[in-house]
Each structure stands twice: as structure tokens, then as C-alpha cells.
């Protein structure tokens, strides 16, 4: 009868792997996030191998030519792949549950995209203003610069 608790424990581990508790995990225990949409811009195999090339190509098109189509736009990736979990929490870029981090942590490839780019869609940023600093006001600068110039 002593084997029963061990079996129970194993069962719970299996359930965890199946995603019933916490985030979904694959056979290796790595987190597999759930996207919002029905399908991605390319099949998963293509995205796994070439997402960086698609992003790089689109990046230069956007920066230099002002082409802001939705396909392969980082903001659109974020809009679809960054979703709240069952508790309503949205993972941030420095957390393992974050869509990009889930693979990048497993493969030990660090990315710095989110040092500059938003890791949440605009609505989420607008809804979560509590912990954020206020936008800079122009007022102190005016006083500083005016007095500097008038002296």
C-alpha cells in the first residue's frame, strides 16, 4: 500500500505536464504559451526556425521605408502571443512564462528586443497605469531654459 502516495504524486506531475496546473509545459518541462489567434503567419516549423529572419526583414522595412503592415510586425506578434493566464496575470519579458522567453530560456539564447520594445499590447499598458511614473511635464524645463537664456 505504500506505493499509492508515490503513484498519486506521479499522477499530479503528469497532470502538471498536461497543463492542468500552471502554464502548459512540453515533454521537457518547458513552458508552451497559448496564443490568442487561430493560426500564425507561417506554420510552426517555419516560425521556430525563421522567426528572427522574418522579424529582421520587417524591421528594416518599417524603420527605413515606413512599411507598417501587420505580417511579421513585432507589435502584432505581441498582440497575439502575449495573453493573460487563467489568473489574469500577464507575463513580462523578464519572466519565464513570457512567450519569447519560454523558448529562449530553454535554449539559453538571450534577446534584447524588449529593452526597447513594448512587451505588452497598448491596451494592457494603458490599463496598467498604477505602477507607472507620470509622463514628463514640460514645465520645469521651460523655467530652466528661460532663466538660462535670460541671464
Amino acid at each position, binding site marked *: 500500500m505504500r506505493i499509492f502516495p508515490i503513484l498519486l504524486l506521479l499522477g499530479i506531475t503528469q497532470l502538471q505536464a498536461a497543463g492542468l496546473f500552471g502554464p502548459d509545459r512540453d515533454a521537457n518541462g518547458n513552458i508552451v504559451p497559448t496564443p490568442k489567434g487561430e493560426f500564425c503567419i507561417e506554420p510552426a516549423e517555419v516560425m521556430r526556425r525563421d522567426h528572427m529572419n522574418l522579424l529582421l526583414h520587417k524591421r528594416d522595412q518599417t524603420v527605413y521605408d*515606413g512599411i507598417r503592415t501587420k505580417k511579421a510586425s513585432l507589435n502584432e506578434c505581441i498582440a497575439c502571443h502575449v495573453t493573460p493566464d487563467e489568473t489574469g496575470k500577464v507575463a513580462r519579458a523578464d519572466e519565464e512564462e513570457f512567450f519569447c522567453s519560454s523558448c529562449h530560456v530553454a535554449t539559453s539564447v538571450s534577446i534584447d528586443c524588449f529593452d526597447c520594445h513594448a512587451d505588452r499590447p497598448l491596451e494592457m499598458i494603458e490599463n496598467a497605469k498604477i505602477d507607472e511614473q507620470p509622463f514628463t511635464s514640460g514645465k520645469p*524645463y*521651460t523655467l530652466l531654459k528661460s532663466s538660462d537664456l535670460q541671464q
Partner: protein
Amino acid sequence: MSQINQYRRKFLGAASAAFTGLSIAPGILLQTVHAKANDEAVTSKQRWGLLIDTNLCEPGCTDCIDACNQENGLRDIHGPETDAQWIRKVTLKHQKTGHVLNMPVMCQHCAEPPCVDVCPTGASFKRADGIVLVDKHICIGCRYCMMACPYKARSFIHEKLTDQLPHAPRGKGTVEGCTLCVHRIDRGENTTACTQACPNGAMTFGDLKNPESEISQKLAQHSGKELRAKLKLDTGVRYQGIQG
């Protein structure tokens, strides 16, 4: 698509092409304003610019700066010494007449930008439609451009930033400045955050190459001066009410 539909489409296409140059009266051509489609690259057919009437600019008012900060997500970090400033409000007093002048000064979007000349990596660049930008992906933060700019228009980001806005990526170790609200222009909007925010309508945004645009009309009527015109940078931002 059926064959009839294809024929219809061809016929209508040809017909609209034939009528594009239609004139209402001799010498007056109907001009269609062509807005850039999302997947079209920007061209040099446009040159975006600003016209600022300093006589309408109120002393002490910072609405344009506040709107710019909000639009692009600029936040207070360590105060004016090191924080990014895309627009500075400048007050000038004429020594002889005592006339006081207020004006917002931002990136002047030069046709011959010194920041682009000095950039060692090519990060500082001018888009085909005249907007001077920084490709922060290749900016190494050397700040040569900040030294070269005669208008003190560029800022360096010293601290790690969080909660940047999706349309305005900004980050530590790179240089940035006014983008002329490039994300709005690419969306087809014909205005900038500062222009919209000015309570006195002192700022006009538009296409300098289109003679029909409001900015070109105003320039044709009352002219506009460049700041530090002697440098011959052919700035995209022009001022009215300043003594050259």
C-alpha cells in the same frame, strides 16, 4: 473571378486612368491626394515639415511638450539634466528692442543633416520623405550626433527604461529625438501630437513639396525662416516671427 468580371475590372481601370487628368476648366486640373498605403515604401515625393508661428506661441505654455511626452512615452527619471527632451521651449529676448520670443525647438529635420554626416554606424539617417531618424538597432550610443546637431535636438538614454509604448521603442544606450510622429504619418494621419496640442494653432504640419498643402500655402503667403540659416542645412521646420 469570372471572365466578365475580369473584363469589367480592366475596363474600369482603363476608364479611371483616362479620366485622371480631367480638368474642370482650362488650366485647373483635378488633383487626387494620394495617401500612402500600408505596404508602400515612403518616397521623396513628399517632404514633411513644420511651420511654427512664434507670435502665437504663449510664454509659459508647454502643451506641445506635454503632448509629445505623452505620445512617445517620455517619463520623468532623473530630471531635466539627463532626461530625454524631444522639444525644448526656448525664450529669447532681443537686446535692443526688448522683444521676447517664445518657441518650441525640436529636431529640425534638415535636408543636409549633420547628425547623419557624423554617425559612424549609419544609425542616424534621413528617410526618403525627409524625416531624420535613428535606427536604434545599430546605434552604438557614441553621441557624435548630439555633438554635431546645431539645435541640441538629440537626447541620450542613460537609464534602463520600462513600459515603452509599442509605436515608440526607446532604450538605454541609444540616442533619440523628435520623429515628427512618424508612426502617425505612416498611418496616414496628417498631423503630429504637438501640432494637435497647440491651443493657439501656432504649429502647422504638412508636406513642403505639395504646393496645395496648408504649410506650403502659409509659407508662400508669409514665408518662414530657418533657425541658424547660415549653416545651409535646409531645415524642414520653419519659423515665422523670428529675426533671421
